[in-house]
């Protein structure tokens, strides 16, 4: 048994390829049972987002055969010859597969490091597989662990803490000036697409009042209706400047639309309460000299881009810390997985020995003549005792292997035990029921 992860992502495959292999959520209930036939793959789920298509599975047989079966499934289902995408595929087994899944769910493998959506997508993929009945004990355990690790990464590192787009960076900065947006007024100068985007951001953060000032009054009114804002005629901009706590300027104009003297005057009127000025127009339409005014914070598009860049760098640094958390979690998970594997082996081994002992007892029983219940009890006790003493060193060793963190459980070792003691075969016996099988 192995955990296998086969897939491609934004680093290995261009979007044209990714979209050809993608699966929609609606497809999953029909697709998953085809992928997980129970013969080669025992359990499986499919993560399909715009940046990745990945199959996470528990193999029953040889890993290479399992990989071939996943490829065959993708090719057949998507009618895409394997040669078209083989170069983009990666495969991870066991420890590396677990690590990759942990990294994906934590946003470390994302295009924008630390983006939060991927966790939800992993959750959905898992839920779909649960509904389709293609997850078993191992994937259940793995996915629960994955969600836990991703949550830990999110709370213990600042990987998703800072804004990585211009509009969210602007909102983030605004929050460092005004704690609570409910009492703040935003004024838009220019009502282009950029401004619209920014307003959406601000509205979702609960901004108090919105003023829209645009050269074409129709557009201003249209937006005003949509965002329950107040339209201000372009000619009256100056009178309304003092009302704004956040001023967002995105107009195309050859000269400065917002001049220093206008803002200086507005600041007097608003008694020098802080003013956040964002100029996302290129060329700039807010006089850069305004930056010298006290309690005015002017950011142009370059400043915001700089913020985004440094936030991305910060995320990279946090990602290094996240890798440490993931490392720990992978080791821990592999350990718990081994005990999951070793449990049935130990049980099978004990049952086998008991079967043999009780089988022999049964065979020779008649020749012993009539036994008193007392005598029978003593013999059974003796059989159990022999089995236990015989099994004890081997079982202890198995537990040691399961607890140790040296290497993964060797499949060859497993195969050896199965073969040496014919663990799969049935033997006629009067072995007592399971009561003590979990004793050790």
């Amino acid at each position, binding site marked *: 048994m192995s955990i296998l992860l086969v897939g491609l992502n934004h680093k290995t495959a261009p979007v044209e390829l990714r979209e050809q292999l993608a699966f929609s959520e609606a497809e999953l209930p029909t697709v998953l049972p085809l992928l997980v036939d129970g013969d080669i793959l025992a359990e499986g789920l499919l993560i399909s987002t715009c940046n990745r298509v990945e199959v996470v599975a528990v193999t029953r047989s040889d890993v290479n055969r399992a990989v071939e079966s996943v490829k065959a499934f993708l090719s057949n289902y998507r009618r895409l010859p394997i040669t078209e995408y083989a170069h983009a595929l990666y495969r991870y087994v066991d420890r590396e597969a677990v690590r990759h899944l942990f990294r994906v769910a934590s946003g470390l493998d994302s295009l924008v490091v630390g983006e939060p959506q991927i966790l939800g997508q992993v959750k959905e993929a898992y839920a779909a597989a649960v509904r389709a009945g293609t997850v078993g004990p191992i994937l259940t355990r793995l996915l629960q662990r994955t969600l836990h690790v991703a949550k830990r990464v999110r*709370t*213990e*590192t*600042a990987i998703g*803490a*800072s804004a990585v787009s211009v509009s969210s960076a602007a909102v983030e*900065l605004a*929050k*460092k*000036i*005004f*704690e*609570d947006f409910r009492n703040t007024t935003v004024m838009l100068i220019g009502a282009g697409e950029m401004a619209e985007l920014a307003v959406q951001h601000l509205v979702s953060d609960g901004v108090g009042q919105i003023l829209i000032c645009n050269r074409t009054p129709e557009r201003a009114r249209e937006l005003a209706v949509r965002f329950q804002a107040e339209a201000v005629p372009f000619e009256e901009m100056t009178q309304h400047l003092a009302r704004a706590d956040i001023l967002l300027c995105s107009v195309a104009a050859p000269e400065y639309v917002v001049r220093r003297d206008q803002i200086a005057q507005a600041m007097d009127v608003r*008694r*020098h*309460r*802080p003013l956040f000025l964002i100029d996302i127009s290129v060329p700039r339409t807010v006089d850069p000299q305004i*930056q010298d005014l*006290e*309690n005015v*914070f002017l*950011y142009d598009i370059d*400043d915001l881009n*700089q*913020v985004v860049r*440094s936030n991305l760098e910060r995320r990279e640094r946090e990602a290094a810390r996240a890798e440490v958390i993931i490392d720990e979690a992978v080791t821990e998970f592999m350990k718990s997985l081994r005990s999951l594997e070793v449990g049935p082996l130990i049980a099978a081994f004990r049952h086998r020995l008991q079967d043999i002992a009780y089988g022999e007892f049964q065979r020779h029983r008649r020749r012993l003549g009539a036994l008193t219940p007392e005598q029978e009890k003593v013999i059974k006790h003796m059989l159990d005792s022999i089995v236990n003493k015989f099994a004890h060193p081997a079982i202890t060793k198995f537990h040691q292997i399961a607890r140790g963190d040296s290497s993964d459980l060797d499949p060859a070792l497993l195969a050896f035990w199965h073969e040496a003691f014919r663990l799969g075969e049935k033997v006629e016996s009067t072995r007592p029921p399971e009561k003590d099988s979990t004793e050790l």
Partner: protein
Amino acid sequence: MSTLLPGALILYGLGLVYEAFLILRRRRMLAALALGVIALGFVAHTAWLVGVSFRSGRFPFLTTQEVFASLAWAIIVYYFLLHARRQTEVLRLFVFPLVLLFLMVAIVSSRTRPLPEQLEDLLRMPALPLHVAFMMFAYAAFFLAFVAATMYLVQERELKRKRFGAVFQLLPSLSTCEALSSRSLVVGFLLLTLGIGTGVILIRRSDPIFWRGDPIIILAILTWVVYLIVIHYRLMAGWRGRKAAILLILGFAVTAVTFLWARLFGHII
């Protein structure tokens, strides 16, 4: 008894270090532990003050040791009454170092102080504890206002420079800093006014001539005038942001300097 104050110091120190670790490393584990350790320190601190009061039969505010231990206590009480509910754990990183410093001063400084006999009457007046409490909490409030104003200036500078480090992420927004400092400013000023009022009554009942020219009176009046000016500019002239913060910090500096001066040369505190 003698181990209570160092005990409180150590517990506060541990609480602070752990809190700093939680805040700086963004850990959430056992966040209550830091508060628990600090609370334990506070119990030891309070027990010490109560013990001293019982032994001497008066409010603990005469020796250098008592003054600093009481001030540290007032700052902690004020902080937890007014600020702990807001999301300003980071404020503790600024408040507790001063508390630690005060306790250290308290531990190493003198335990006795020869008192002029004119004070004997005063110490027996029932209104004295009230006056002392007003003054202690006024200073505590001014200290918090000073901390918040400093945070404002640091955050403002970061926003102007447009380079954001760990400090920027850590500090609250400008509006929060401003709200914290102006609230504490007003509270402190009200307490100071009440403190001066009760002080005047006390002095008139004891021996007015004895007090003539005592630094403590100059301190009180100077502090009151300074904060009156700060409040005037803030509320009446509408000074906001940077200038208001600078003014507040200057006000606190004047208070701190005169406080030490009064402490060295005055009859009481």
